[in-house]
């Protein structure tokens, strides 16, 4: 009660700013999404189902989901290490490295896709060593996971950094003095505090990967049933001027994203409760 009173007074014009927020959210988020739903709802159910549940579409959803999932996991592990290094250690070039983490936010994703595919093809810088070893990191499923990892990387680092910074190093000392091994300290003391942020970072990078189009079309090869992602299907349907069918597939992706967000909120709630 008291906090809300304070908040109102800190920022003047509460009603105005709230009205502004709601109006813009409505304009930028709700109206387009509603338009999407309305368009898809113009289809009778059998045509909707026929559009979204073909064998090819199912393969594309499965590929989109699994590659996003894999890349989000990689990002959680890599992101934890990078965040740890950036928070706990001092070394020359640290600031530079820190700002480099944001690069995937700033770089047009199509550029990332072009660069990755150029690097890993058979005559590319890295591909010339990797392809003879049987590692095909261009035009394969691995390639898609790679670029999605790149795209989602900052999300995990940037959500973990403030949490790590707020952790008191004395807690680790205390654990050590009480006889905990290094692993026990990490597992029982640090990890529980980090889990909520890790879940958030995972979810953000997962959701980002699900909607990614620009980079993936350049590295995947777009082979139906193998490396075709769901957004490519949407573009294919638009080319046939089948707007409603394209929107129907979009609605399925939208539902997946919303389901994902719900799940993540539940997980966060659960992890907070179980550790308080």
């Amino acid at each position: 009660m008291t906090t809300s009173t304070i908040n109102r007074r800190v920022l003047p014009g509460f009603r105005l700013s709230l009205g502004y927020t709601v109006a813009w959210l409505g304009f930028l988020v709700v109206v387009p999404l509603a338009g999407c739903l309305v368009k898809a709802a113009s289809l009778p159910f059998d045509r909707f189902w026929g559009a979204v549940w073909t064998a090819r579409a199912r393969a594309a959803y499965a590929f989109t989901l699994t590659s996003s999932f894999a890349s989000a996991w990689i990002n959680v592990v890599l992101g934890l290490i990078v965040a740890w290094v950036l928070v706990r250690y001092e070394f020359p070039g640290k600031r530079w490295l820190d700002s480099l983490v944001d690069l995937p936010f700033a770089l047009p994703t199509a550029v990332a896709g072009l660069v990755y595919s150029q690097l890993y093809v058979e005559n590319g810088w890295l591909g010339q060593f990797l392809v003879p070893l049987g590692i095909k990191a261009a035009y394969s499923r691995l390639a898609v996971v790679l670029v999605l990892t790149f795209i989602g990387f900052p999300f995990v680092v940037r959500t973990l950094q403030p949490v790590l910074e707020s952790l008191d190093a004395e807690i680790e000392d205390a654990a050590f003095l009480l006889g905990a091994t290094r692993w026990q300290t990490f597992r029982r003391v640090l990890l529980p505090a980090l889990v909520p942020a890790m879940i958030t970072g995972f979810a953000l990078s997962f959701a980002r990967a699900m909607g990614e189009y620009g980079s993936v079309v350049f590295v995947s090869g777009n082979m139906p049933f193998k490396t075709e992602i769901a957004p490519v299907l949407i573009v294919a349907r638009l080319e046939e001027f089948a707007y409603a069918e394209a929107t129907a597939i979009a609605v399925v992706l939208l539902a997946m994203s919303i389901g994902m967000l719900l799940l993540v909120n539940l997980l966060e709630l659960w992890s907070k409760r179980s550790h308080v």
Partner: protein
Amino acid sequence: MTMIYGTSARRILVIAAFLTVSILGCNNGGTAKNDASSTGAAKADAAPSQVELLNVSYDPTRELWRQVNERFVVAYRNQAAREVTIKQSHGGSGSQARAVIDGLEADVVTLAIWSDIDAIRKAGLIADDWQQRLPHDSLPYFSTIVLVVRKGNPHEIKDWSDLVRPDVAIITPSPKTSGNGKLSFLAAWGSIVRRGGSEAEARDFVTELYRHTPVLDTGARAATNTFAQKGIGDVHLTWENEAVLEVAESGGQLQIVYPPISIRAEPFVALVDANVDRKSTRDVAEAYLKFLYTPEAQQVIAENGYRPIEPDVLSQHSEKFPELELFEIAEIAAGWAEANDKFFAEGGVFDQIYESRAE
């Protein structure tokens, strides 16, 4: 998902622009113009000698239209004593057609495939008789699909049937998203049925052909990049004009192979009636399209690797455009509408290639 945001967002933007314009009350027509053209519009009221056209075209024609436009600006200044500026917009032919249908204010459209212009007609923006309004059924030039191979033609590719030999990999964009992709497919199909093969044989051939295709890019330029820059594949199926450019830029690393038979690709042109009437640009747009048939423009067209429609200009460049048997879409399907339904629509022949493979 992003694409849907795109189309919805475009509508929202148009609505927003309408609102802004009507609130400011500064425009009698209330049309949502490009921001860049707003000063031009003010000038146009004061001095009608200044006019701007937007040419909405397909992917690989940037260089062509830039050169044609330069010539037209000069010609129109001499002929009508008016200054014209021409803007170009490029992208996949189908998505360009959709943009025009959704409100992109094109004065003229110059698209890769007949059915893309016809989709705009169906939306009511182009008159039904558009093909009769210009010489040669509104076709200022034509082109075809040729084969590009690596230096020395190591796989000895001469004809379509060579493409399905075991060790040959093909690069061509997806027919689902690219005009180049559609024409490549149809050329391969026609190479069987136009030589007396049955539909079943044609189906087997294209199935085999796409088994040899390791990458399906979404557009013509992307496929060129995959083949020429990344070095993937042995044969690139592409527009003749794109092949000319690709080979010229490769520094001797690539060469063109003309198959004995291929499809006649017909990128038609049309003025968009609804837009030119609202913008009062009909006379300029008509002059622009008629200019394409003048000897001057036909020369520029030939220089850019497109086959000019006027026979005398074409014969002047005969060494650049070797003769090959070109069949029209009507010779392998009832027309573009049927070809799209049969081959490229959801569940069509192209989809079946991959579905049979997945089982």
